[in-house]
């Protein structure tokens, strides 16, 4: 119910002009064409094969004295959802608090999950959701971490100067945690009510300099109603900028307990957990301010027992190579296009060529 509270508060603030309200929004439409017979499908709320959309609207009300309220609603593959709904108090540069429905800072990409904030038409594989090939439980069952990583809880965060140019940012949080049924279910993880007693926790630290940043993230908790199945995730990320060229790389991993009492495993259960590792390396070159060329290589590697529904083998791997272009028509409007080559090993899927064309509007 908290979401209606926060929403009503911000709307009241907006209509009363009592506070300074900043509105921002975005909309993205993406069409993908997959080569070969029987292409894997993705969820399309529009009912058109290969076509997805995402719209989001955000309001930030600044109340004064460093207090603000943020609400962001978005609609996409899963209908209308509240992506953010939190209050925030900026106390000191090194100590600040936000509470409510948060976007957790896990990995570098998560902060940039809005389509106006990244240059490719698709998300990197560790963060891939329904736009991934073979994303279902019969395949790889999604990436490592959802983007956005939405959860309810409290976060403290801040920034410490280490020298004139170098600073250390941190964030630590206690939240409801991911939810699932013999492996994590991202859609159910976004429900408002918790399903178990143990909260989840996590944090992120980033060391930043003039044109570089290195970060580390971790989180963990239990994801089943009985509090017996654990997950643990960690990630490392790197950002480098050389004038118009930006290089980013991330490696993320998740260890997830499986239910040893479940039936239907294709292999004998020795260790009842699996490890999934995901990574990407990406170069963005702004050839001219209006046009960015992107080269990206990403992948997802599974180790250990596959879930019962899955047809992949224990060491299955998916790799993708991408060339993308993003053209900014003006400050509000951009066109994204790419070509992706998907290859798989140790899974009964065939390599695919994929092309995407997307339009992004932001204001």
């Amino acid at each position: 119910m908290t979401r209606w509270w926060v929403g009503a508060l911000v709307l009241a603030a907006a209509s009363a002009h009592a506070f300074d309200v900043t509105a921002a929004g975005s909309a993205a439409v993406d069409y993908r064409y997959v080569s070969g017979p029987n292409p894997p499908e993705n969820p399309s709320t529009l009912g058109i094969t290969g076509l997805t959309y995402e719209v989001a609207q955000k309001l930030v009300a600044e109340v004064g004295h460093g207090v603000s309220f943020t609400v962001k609603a978005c609609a996409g593959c899963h209908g209308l959802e509240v992506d953010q709904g939190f209050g925030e108090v900026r106390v000191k540069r090194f100590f600040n608090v936000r509470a409510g429905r948060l976007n957790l800072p896990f990995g570098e990409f998560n902060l940039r999950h809005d389509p106006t904030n990244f240059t490719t038409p698709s998300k990197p594989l560790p963060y891939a959701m329904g736009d991934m090939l073979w994303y279902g439980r019969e395949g790889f069952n999604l990436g490592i971490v959802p983007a956005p990583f939405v959860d309810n809880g409290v976060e403290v965060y801040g920034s410490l100067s280490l020298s004139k140019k170098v600073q250390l940012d941190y964030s630590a949080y206690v939240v409801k945690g991911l939810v699932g049924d013999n492996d994590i279910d991202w859609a159910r993880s976004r429900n408002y009510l918790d399903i178990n007693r143990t909260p989840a926790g996590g944090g992120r630290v980033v060391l930043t300099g003039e044109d570089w940043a290195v970060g580390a993230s971790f989180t963990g908790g239990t994801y089943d109603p009985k509090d017996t199945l654990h997950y643990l995730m960690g990630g490392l990320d790197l950002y480098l900028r050389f004038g118009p060229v930006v290089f980013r790389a991330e490696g993320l991993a998740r260890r997830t307990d499986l239910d040893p009492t479940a039936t239907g495993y294709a292999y004998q259960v020795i260790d009842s957990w699996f490890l999934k590792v995901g990574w990407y390396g990406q170069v963005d070159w702004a050839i001219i301010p209006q046009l960015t060329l992107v080269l990206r290589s990403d992948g997802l590697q599974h180790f250990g027992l596959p879930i019962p529904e899955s047809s992949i083998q224990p060491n299955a791997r998916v790799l993708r190579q991408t060339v993308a272009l993003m053209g900014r028509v003006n400050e509000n409007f951009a066109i994204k296009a790419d070509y992706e080559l998907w290859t798989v090993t140790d899974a009964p899927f065939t390599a695919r060529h994929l092309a995407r064309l997307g339009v992004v509007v932001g204001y």
Partner: protein
Amino acid sequence: MLALVLALTLAAPPNARLAWERKCLYCHSEEVAEGHRYTEPQWRRVVEKMRLKAPLLISKADAVLLTRYATQTLKLVLPPARPTPMVVAPLKPVPVDKPPADELKTPVMTDLPADLPADLPPELPPTPPDDSLRTNADDELDQQATALIQARCSKCHALGRVYGRLDTYERSLTTLERMRLKTGSGITDDDLAVLERYLRAQF
């Protein structure tokens, strides 16, 4: 005509053209920015109005440069207003035998030609900033701030819609503060000090 504009464009100092492209063609096309003719004071007011839409993109010094570029390089100027309808709308000449009645009645002795929007901010000074009082330190601050905004904001904003949002001093400051505290923003105390000084000069 096109050739003339092209020739003049090429003859202009390269950084003025670049500034025009980067700043005036940031939100709209050439048709909008170059499809109008105004007198010089009117250009100053149009550019000032545009500057207030995106003060972090178009600094006060830019406004002077860009006004000069529109009037002297692109020569998108009207001769000083005379009470004839032909001068009011030179791009769509009115047949002399049948001038529209209301256009004839419009007094054209003021600054405003027919196609200048009426919603210019009333608080605008009649003579917008002039660069005679500027120092090298001001220019340095402008350059430093512009480079900072580009480097820091583009780390996360691929679309560059940041400029249109930072349209008042208070909002710009609180937004910068919120963005700075995004984990990993890389915006330092020094950066913020530069941006604050720059913002104070822009509003």
